[in-house]
């Protein structure tokens, strides 16, 4: 189950655009280097946008795991 040592987890399923993106950025701001953020999403556009934008910020995307029907968990390692 616990694939990664997740430090913080946010569930933004069903939220309207761009709340998932904004919540991800907010969560990352309060985290320390090396910690892992788990973002739970259910909108395909978020799956395409969020990894690209956090990579731009310098963080590492460990995995985009499909966890259900149109549901994914993005694991982000803070730089």
């Amino acid at each position: 189950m616990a694939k990664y040592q997740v430090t913080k987890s946010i569930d933004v399923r069903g939220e309207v655009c761009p709340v998932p993106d904004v919540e991800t950025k907010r969560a990352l701001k309060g985290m320390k280097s090396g910690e892992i953020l788990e973002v739970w999403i259910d909108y395909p556009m978020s799956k395409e946008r969020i990894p690209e934008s956090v990579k731009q910020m310098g963080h590492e995307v460990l995995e985009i795991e499909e966890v259900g029907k149109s549901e994914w968990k993005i694991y982000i390692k803070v730089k």
Partner: protein
Amino acid sequence: MAWTGLVIGFVFGIILQKGRVCFNSAFRDVLIFKDNYLMKLAALALALQSITLLLFAQFGAIHLAPKPLNWIANIIGGYIFGLGMVLAGGCASGVTYRSGEGMTTAWFAAIFYGLTAYATSSGIFSGWSKWVSKFNITIQSTNPVYASKIGPTVSTVLNVSPWVATLVFAALLMWYAFGTKTTQRPTKFNWVIAAILIAILAPIAWWTSAKSGRNYGLGITGGWVNLFSVYTANKPINWEGAEIIGIILGALVSSLASKEFKFRMPKDPKTYLQVMVGGALMGFGAATAGGCNIGHFLTGVPQLAISSLIASVFFILGNWTMAWLLFGKER
């Protein structure tokens, strides 16, 4: 002939869904996320469409119909529409195609958008729209690419051939699209393909719509208004109303096929209140301005209509204002 709207809408719905075409995001991302992916899609679609529409008009298949210029309506309506789309979580086409993807917040946004647009054009707010339409500015056109009574365009104001104005416009947007750095994104239809498909679909849409007696291209607001008049006042369905049903079905089939359909619900019920207020503002704004991000921005700007250019500037300013208020701290 209204059924052709259903077919065109279906194809448009697939393009919107696969290309993730949302103008609310396009405008907002440039300011808040420094992301120009969707803005480039929009710019390229406008550039190519300005040429494809004019080609069809040149060969006499359609007569371009730039919307009347109305400083008060285009500015106020455009700004209110821009504020509304951020709250609604999508523009007029965005909430329409997301309704087909099972986004429950989009249903509420779309219903309040259509209902309020209907109220503004022929219901409780019709006094306002009737009053503001007194300031409509139209001109008589002699150029056969245009309908006889049109709103002024860049070409009529500068008194140059529509081709000169269009090619300069298209060249500027192409330079922006290909000459500057693009934000990366792994989308099913990348931005270039989505823009090309829209530019091919748009003149065909106009041609079939004109055959049904409605001389305009792709649109959203008028379609929702038509659907509400069909539902509540037993009016006949028109091309644009059928187009809306087509978009929803197209997005439904497309999202089912790629396993992206899901009934999505936010955890905080207050979100529904937010999208309903946003939808209502969009409906009032679009009906006042004489069009939404599709009628004015996607279809009106390529005709270089002054009305659509002004409305679009205020769509973007309204969008930026609300996006700044809600998400400005995340820049």
